[in-house]
């Protein structure tokens, strides 16, 4: 007769080293834990509450002597950020210590555009004093504090913006016209002009480096290819576009920050309608920057707030404000997608966490797992009323709250009016344009 005995190899339940955790065996039979869903719901609720408790996004501020007008991140160096202000001051900030590392004196008027080359060794600035200056960014620890420009170029018109190509040696300046420059040459390699209005912003496509988009004060968004001698396409909207950002992970998509307080995402190939309209700001959106992950973008607005949107979300996921922050003129997502830097009218550069309740510093694996679990739970139960209420709640300063409410009322009233008009006219005589098309005036070829 064969005797059956329970046999286990010792490897299964003993640890190899004394530091190892003891292995715990569990029975995963769901009948043993009938309350699992209820337990997880409560955990999700607690996670949502904890998120609120730990939601302290503001990290620190860095001060200039005038309103910040533009910023540039160093694509090769995480903690370096260049900021230019209205008094012509350009500084390199170390955002870990929040100290000025270097000053770039020279501009007489407001600095309007700043950009750094992909390797972070060169900086280009331009401003209202009609000068483009090129700088070599010194290595970190050299002793002298301020830097002299490598060379400069004076033109007849003021410059409004500059952007550097990703992984190339070309950069584009805008103002009266769009100029493409080379680091080696002293005159523009190429110039584009389409229409007579001032071009106010420019952005190269990081995924597809030959492509660039500009926006002009004639309410247009124009696309260019640096390889050709002519512009490609122009789109005219009802209101001015203040800034443009390309999605770094989806080269065909870009989002335009509009004067009407909305952001419009477009597919390059289909400009007759926006793929998404991102609403929430109560005033004009001044600047926009995509997260390097391509999954969200941050906007700074004239209503004194910073908002973070999902790339496919109609409403913002997060709003940042402080009582002292004034109009936000420029905004950047850090290169590791975990910080947001805003520059505003109150002379300050502000550093925010991209996830308000994220734990900073090195996490233990256990902590990391726990955070992941909490996130997953929140994501799972976010539709249930209690969790939703907590997750969606944001405390807003009264003026902003009121402005947003007013805006809502206005859009609602307009919608109602149109509805009524439609109801009282012959069927089919009035057609409602979807919001995605409504603000587009025309596409120019």
């Amino acid at each position, binding site marked *: 007769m064969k005797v059956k005995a329970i046999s286990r190899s010792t490897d299964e339940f003993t640890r190899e080293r004394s530091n190892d955790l003891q292995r715990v065996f569990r029975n995963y039979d769901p009948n043993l834990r009938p309350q699992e869903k209820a*337990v997880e719901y409560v955990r999700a609720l607690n996670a949502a509450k904890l998120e609120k408790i730990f939601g302290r996004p503001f990290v620190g501020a860095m001060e200039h002597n005038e309103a910040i007008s533009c910023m540039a991140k160093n694509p090769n160096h995480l903690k370096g950020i260049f900021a230019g202000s209205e008094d012509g001051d350009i500084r390199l900030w170390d955002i870990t210590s929040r100290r000025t590392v270097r000053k770039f004196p020279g501009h007489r008027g407001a600095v309007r555009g700043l950009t750094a080359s992909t390797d972070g060794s060169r900086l280009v600035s331009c401003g209202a004093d009609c000068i483009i200056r090129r700088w070599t960014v010194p290595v*970190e620890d050299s002793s002298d504090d301020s830097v002299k420009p490598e060379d400069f170029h004076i033109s007849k018109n003021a410059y409004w913006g500059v952007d550097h190509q990703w992984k190339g040696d070309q950069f584009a300046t805008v103002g009266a016209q769009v100029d493409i420059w080379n680091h080696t040459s002293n005159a523009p390699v190429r110039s584009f002009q389409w229409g007579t209005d001032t071009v106010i912003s420019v952005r190269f496509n990081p995924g597809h480096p030959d492509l660039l988009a500009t926006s002009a004060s004639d309410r247009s968004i124009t696309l260019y290819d640096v390889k050709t001698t002519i512009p490609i396409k122009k789109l005219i909207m009802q209101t001015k576009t203040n800034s443009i950002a390309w999605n770094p992970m989806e080269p065909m998509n870009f989002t335009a920050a509009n004067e009407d307080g909305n952001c419009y995402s477009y597919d390059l190939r289909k400009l007759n309608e926006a793929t998404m309209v991102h609403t929430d700001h109560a005033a004009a959106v001044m600047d926009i920057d995509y997260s390097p992950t391509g999954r969200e973008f941050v906007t700074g607005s004239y209503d004194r707030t910073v908002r973070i949107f999902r790339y496919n979300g109609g409403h913002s996921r997060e709003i940042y404000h402080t009582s002292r922050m004034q109009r936000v003129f420029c905004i950047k997502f850090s290169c590791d997608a975990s910080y947001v830097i805003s520059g505003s009218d109150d002379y300050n550069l502000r550093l925010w966490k991209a996830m308000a309740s994220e734990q900073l510093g090195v996490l233990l694996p256990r902590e990391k797992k726990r955070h992941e679990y909490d996130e997953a739970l929140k994501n799972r139960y976010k539709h249930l009323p209690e969790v939703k209420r907590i997750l969606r709640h944001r405390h807003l300063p009264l003026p902003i709250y009121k402005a947003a409410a007013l805006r809502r009322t206005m859009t609602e009233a307009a919608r109602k009016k149109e509805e009524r008009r439609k109801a009282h006219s012959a069927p089919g005589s009035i057609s409602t344009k979807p919001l995605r098309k409504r603000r587009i005036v025309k596409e120019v070829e």
Partner: protein
Amino acid sequence: MRNLLYNLQGKTAKPRDENVPSDDDEDEDEDGDLMDNGGNKLEDSHDEIEEDDDGRHVRMLEGITGMPSEAFEGKKKKNNVVISEAYPESEYNPTRDVLDGDGRISMEDLLGTLQKKPGFGKLRKIMDQMKKSEAIEAPLPTVIREKMERQAAYKISKKDMAKWEPQVKRNREAPTIYFDEDTDLGFSTVGAIASEFEPRTEFEKKMASLVYDDDVMEAHKKDGSRLLELNQVSVEDEKERHNRIAKMRSLLFRHEMKAKHIKKIKSKTYHRLLKKDRLKTAAALTEMDPEAAKEQAMKQEFKRAEERMTLKHKNTSKWATRILQRGLQVQDEEEEDEVPDSGILSLPFMERGLKKRKEAAEEEAKLALQEYEVSMKQLDDPSGAENSKIKASSGRRVFGAAKICAPESRDVIKTDNFYANSDSDDDMEAKENIFDVGKDGSSDMQKDVHVDSVLPNEFHQDSVFKSFDDIVRDPGPKTTYDVAIFASDKWRKMESRNKVDANSKKSPVAVEPEYNQDLQEPVKEVGENSDTESEGQMVDGIISLDPKPTYELPSQTELIRQAFAGDDVEEDFENDKQEILNEENPEPEKPVLLPGWGQWTRVQKKKGLPSWMLKEHENAKRKREEALKKRKDAHLKHVIISEKLDKKAEKLLTKTLPYPFTSKEVFEQSIRMPIGPEFNPATAVGALNRPAVVKKPGVIIKPIEFKEVNPHENKEDHKWSGQKQKMKKSKSDGSIPRKKMKKAEGKSKKVN
């Protein structure tokens, strides 16, 4: 030369130019052609008019003469060419041939004059080439040309974008996108990092120049013996250093010993002297250097002020403030009878209680003392007992005292009884009085206990006997009872016949409306089952039980009537329903006339209730009726479906179907399985909880780079297939999205 060529080109192109609508041509023909063009146009129009006139003339002639129009043609031509030669033939007055059209100036004519000039051969060659080729089309206007170019360029860049599509699509559809994979964190060891170090600042450079000294480096490269040589130190130097260190050490030691010794000295005089000494030196110092002394004094003063500032010297401690307030003596007195200031014992009723208890205790003590005295006196002299008797029977106090004495012992009672039985003298009356109550009580209790123990037994036995007797004597009623039970079982059968339910009255069953339908079915099934059991069988069974064959079975309806003779179930149910309806949609309150409220009293008296009140009441009534009509159970006579909301359950339900989900089932499925580490094996938890974006803080994320992606490959490297995939699959089910996830919670009562 070039100019010439251009002109030629312009001339050859002219005939075509005229065909093109002439609005955009200006830019092209710049030198002189413009004029030409305009001139031509004028001529053209003139010609046309003339031609028109001629046509009319010919037609007129035709009409008059009846001859064909050809006959007049030649004439017309001739007429047309007639020109009086008033001027000599010249550039401005060409010959007849020229006007006729056959004598045009050709290229050859012009070239003929150039013959024998240098470069003529070349020019002729070009001319020949031009003759062979067709006329070149004029370039389009810039605006149109640029537009077309832009269109082409846009098309190309659109096409370029298409190459990104598979990559972008894959990223979008992936449940998790990773940004931490190819991170090069550089060197892992300190040595590797150090080897890469380059001196940048001056200090670093100095250090480097020392470290990377040629001699040293060379020595390093060789076997290292040279390194030892470089390190060599002379014997004298080493000795001197050693001595120096030893001296220092001994000095330190001695100083330490001395300090220890001084510290141990307890003599007051010594210390006084020491202090004096110190003061003296200080004074000397002040004399020597008054400024330093002043500074020192300032420092001291500042220190003292700082110390005074501290809370230590402000008497802010609880004890100090209290003592300051009330003086030192108060403290001792208060300690004696302390009533705590705070806590439960400070509450007023507790205070009162304490006081009462204290009084009671005092009284007790007094009584005890008295008793003690009485007993002592009794022992001494029996006549004293009367006093005690008077005192004892004179009121409540005695009673209370007696009560306290009661639990002393049972022996006392016994002795008491004994005394009572034996009718002993009055001496013990007092005691009897005292213990009367106790005795009575105990005897009563005993009785009770007895009765209690007897009664149930009797009843029980009685009932048992009775039932036995009954059964034996008269089995008839018993059987009817049984039948009644069976019959009451049958009520389910009656469901379809709309008959009365007996059970429902006793236990109204609450069922949520969502499950209502599901529940109805099983009930019906049960009913059917019971239907299938034939009545006859049951009846047979009962008959077999019946010992008397003469017993006639009552009819079914009669049985039921008998069974429910007393209670009107239907009405009860209706009442119940009405109650629930009233609870959920309460009847509006009748308007009440409040004198002076809403109108002057005399007006009120005349007119009664104001009309708006009545109207409001009417409205409320109507609303209620409408609400009642709208109820689901409005037309179901025997059913109550509660429409009351369950607030606790509401928290766990969404109002509408959340956005990405297309059906209720899919949404419910998505949150069905738990994801926690307690409910899943460790290998699965990571995948279940993985966030949509995995990134490392501090790692720079670069923009997308083009990679060939096979769109048909299986993109899931990870075992876990995310919720997204599941959602997509279930989308194809085509189930209709339900807007309302949750309807009103409810209770249902079913009759029949």
